[in-house]
């Protein structure tokens, strides 16, 4: 054993630890759940175990014995990464209506999507609360990241619009979403897409049963409204394109409703507040205790070997003692 195997093993250890820690840093990358990722880590383990085996037999001298601790730590961390990447649950994206509850079986938990009014949607300040039996609630807000055992939970903002419907006299009207799971929600989450003018645009559908109206709402991004016929002060705001039908699917009108403005179409006064609502993402992450222990051992082993080299006055790596 000379410097080359030692350097190779250390380089592999650093790369493997980097790949495992990356699961915590960018947990939504699908690569972590592929066989290629697991194979790369498994090969890294082989290289490290190969060096470890020789080092424990004294083939790399005193430094090698001390580095064995670091390599053992790296192996622990890498195996943790293989386990979470390969055997951990697939990334789960949970998009639910405000006020509803979604079971998260992998965590034995339920996610409560907090209620949202127009201001909450506009500001994107809604959050998700995770409840588990005999545990404190975990609140996950916009751009938050929480670790829960071998899972990482993120909240990502998704398109949403709060719709208010009134009749011609100004009386508030019930909004329903017969085609969506949240029947009585005035918050559109735009689960569908359609192509308009060469762009894939999100759309949703709602009904106003009191007036027998069915409304398709296509979300137009701010960049599109600059080229549309809207008031100058509304140009550059996101907007909804409404297509209103009656109960017999007869088209009654089309109009564009810029964010925050009330429009009148087919006997309806509609106002959309456009913003965002959280989507909960649950991804697997390396078990934090095992990963910390592995990385800790790796650093401790490196320091120990470094001290040994320093004390022996043999800092150049190609001069191992006892070999």
């Amino acid at each position, binding site marked *: 054993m000379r410097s080359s195997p030692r350097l190779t093993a250390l380089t592999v250890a650093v790369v493997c630890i980097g790949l495992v820690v990356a699961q915590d840093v960018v947990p939504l990358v*699908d690569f972590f*759940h*592929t*066989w290629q990722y*697991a*194979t790369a880590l*498994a*090969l890294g*383990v*082989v290289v490290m*175990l*190969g060096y470890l*085996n020789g080092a424990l037999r004294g083939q790399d001298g005193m430094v090698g014995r001390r580095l064995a601790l670091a390599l053992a730590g790296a192996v622990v961390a890498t195996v943790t990464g*293989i386990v979470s990447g*390969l*055997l951990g649950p*697939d*990334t*789960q*994206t*949970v*998009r*639910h*209506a*405000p*006020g*509803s*509850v*979604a079971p998260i079986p992998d965590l034995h938990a339920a996610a409560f999507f907090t*209620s949202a*009014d127009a201001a909450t949607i506009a500001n994107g300040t809604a959050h998700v609360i995770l409840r588990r039996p005999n545990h404190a609630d975990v609140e996950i807000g916009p751009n938050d990241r929480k670790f829960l055992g071998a899972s990482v939970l993120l909240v990502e903002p998704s398109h949403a619009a709060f719709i208010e419907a009134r009749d011609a006299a*100004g*009386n*508030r*009207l*019930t*909004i329903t979403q017969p085609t*969506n*799971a*949240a*029947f*009585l*929600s*005035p918050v559109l*989450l735009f*689960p569908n897409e359609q192509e308009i003018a060469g762009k894939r645009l999100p759309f949703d559908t709602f009904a106003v*049963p*009191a007036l027998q109206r069915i409304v398709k709402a296509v979300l137009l991004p701010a960049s599109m409204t600059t080229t549309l016929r809207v008031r100058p002060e509304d140009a550059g705001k996101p907007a909804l394109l409404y297509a209103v039908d009656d109960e017999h699917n007869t088209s009654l009108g089309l109009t564009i409703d810029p964010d925050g403005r009330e429009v009148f179409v087919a006997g309806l006064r509609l106002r959309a507040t456009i913003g965002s609502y959280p989507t909960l993402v649950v991804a697997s992450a390396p078990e934090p205790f095992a990963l910390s222990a592995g990385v800790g051992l790796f650093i401790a082993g490196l320091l120990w070997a470094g001290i040994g080299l320093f004390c022996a006055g043999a800092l150049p790596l190609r001069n191992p003692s006892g070999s």
Partner: protein
Amino acid sequence: MRTVLAVAAAVVAVLVVIAFYPGGGPKLDVGAGGGPRMLVGAPAQSFPVKRVDGTVDGLDHYRGRIVVMNLWATWCPPCREEMPALERLYREYRSRGVVVLGVDQGEAPRVAQAYARAHGVTYPILIDEDQQYGRAYAAVGLPTTIIVGRDGHIVKGIDGELTLAQMREAIAPALRAQ
């Protein structure tokens, strides 16, 4: 030599597991629904909303009583048809600690008030303009009726119109539990 063979065997085993692991793509849950039945046993959520007279009210104000919470709207024919039965239930069981709570979904207070008055409804009517109760109680249609026990937990969730006999049957377990 033995150690090298053991390591090689371990690596082969890992690779075999990797090769045959049944991978799956990311899962997207956009709300599977399930209706009000799935909420039985859960704590009943409460939101402050206004009554038709403008005072603030909410489900949690009725803790300690059995609540028959009926989600309704004036445009909904089955809701209108079951209102007389709800009124009878309210009068019949009020003295036994049962309250009927009509929660109008998304309509103007004066519309709900006018309807309730015209049809002799005396039980409390709440106006849920933002439809928070409808969302929280997983309503898949109107009317939706939720029975909440004295302990504030959901005893029953029912989708659709009920007769007086069905209402009596629905509250019976909660009455027996006192």
